[in-house]
């Protein structure tokens, strides 16, 4: 029986590459991984956005309207909806001039309760240490 903490770290901006999206879809897949695991085993994911990766969390991304694709925003909201933690580095937001009211804060409209957590890099560092595996995107 093992509970494994897995940290997904998104470091790069959205849409140019598939990477931020793959981070979120893989993290979401931890919810259905049971079928491949022994009883009592579980994967506990956190998705953190650091560096230019925080640009993924800017709200109001009309990706479906403009390009016919799911937005990174909607993947973030789906994550919050199933209570998967979404962390965003405060120092990077400040560096890039982003205020909290520009960011995706919750998925209330979908019925979600969890909110985005704005954290310092020191907290992310702590989580890196606590996690068994690090997945950088």
């Amino acid at each position, binding site marked *: 029986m*093992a509970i*494994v903490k*897995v940290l997904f770290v998104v470091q790069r901006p959205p849409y140019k*590459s*598939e*990477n931020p999206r*793959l*981070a979120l*879809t*893989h993290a*979401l*897949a*931890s*919810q*259905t*991984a*049971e*079928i*491949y*695991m022994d009883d009592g*085993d*579980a*994967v506990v*994911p956190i998705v953190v956005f650091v560096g230019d990766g925080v640009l993924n969390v800017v709200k109001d991304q009309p990706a479906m309207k403009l390009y016919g694709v799911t937005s990174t925003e909607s993947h973030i909201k789906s994550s919050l909806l199933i209570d998967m933690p979404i962390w965003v580095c405060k120092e990077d937001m400040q560096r890039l001039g982003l205020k909290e009211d520009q960011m995706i804060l919750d998925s209330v409209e979908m019925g979600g309760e969890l909110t985005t957590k704005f954290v310092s890099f020191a907290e992310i560092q702590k989580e890196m240490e606590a996690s*068994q*595996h*690090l*997945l*950088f*995107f």
Partner: protein
Amino acid sequence: MAELTFGVFSSLVGSMSLDFSFRLADAAVAKGHKVNIWLSGNAVMMAKKGQKPFKDYSYNEKRMKELIAKGAEVTVCEACAEARGYHKEDTHDGVKRASMDWYLAKTVKTDRLLHIGGE
């Protein structure tokens, strides 16, 4: 003997990340480790049958088949493959197709994970 799981993402034909992964996997198997390889994003290109070996491109098919023969598990992301038009019948024998939860489940038992997320 320990277990090493690779996640290879967004790797391209023409880049060397796939080469790197398969060679490192080879070295791990030679040292008696159990190896799992997850191919996702554009790395699913690796599992397409019928790739013509040009000298301008590295050709990892032979190495992949040998790895599988030696007990390595190679699995491609099913959705990523379908989105690119690679269907079940396009996949190399011995390569599995699964959804992303296969990779997540591997994180529980594997001793080490090398997640190659860049391009």
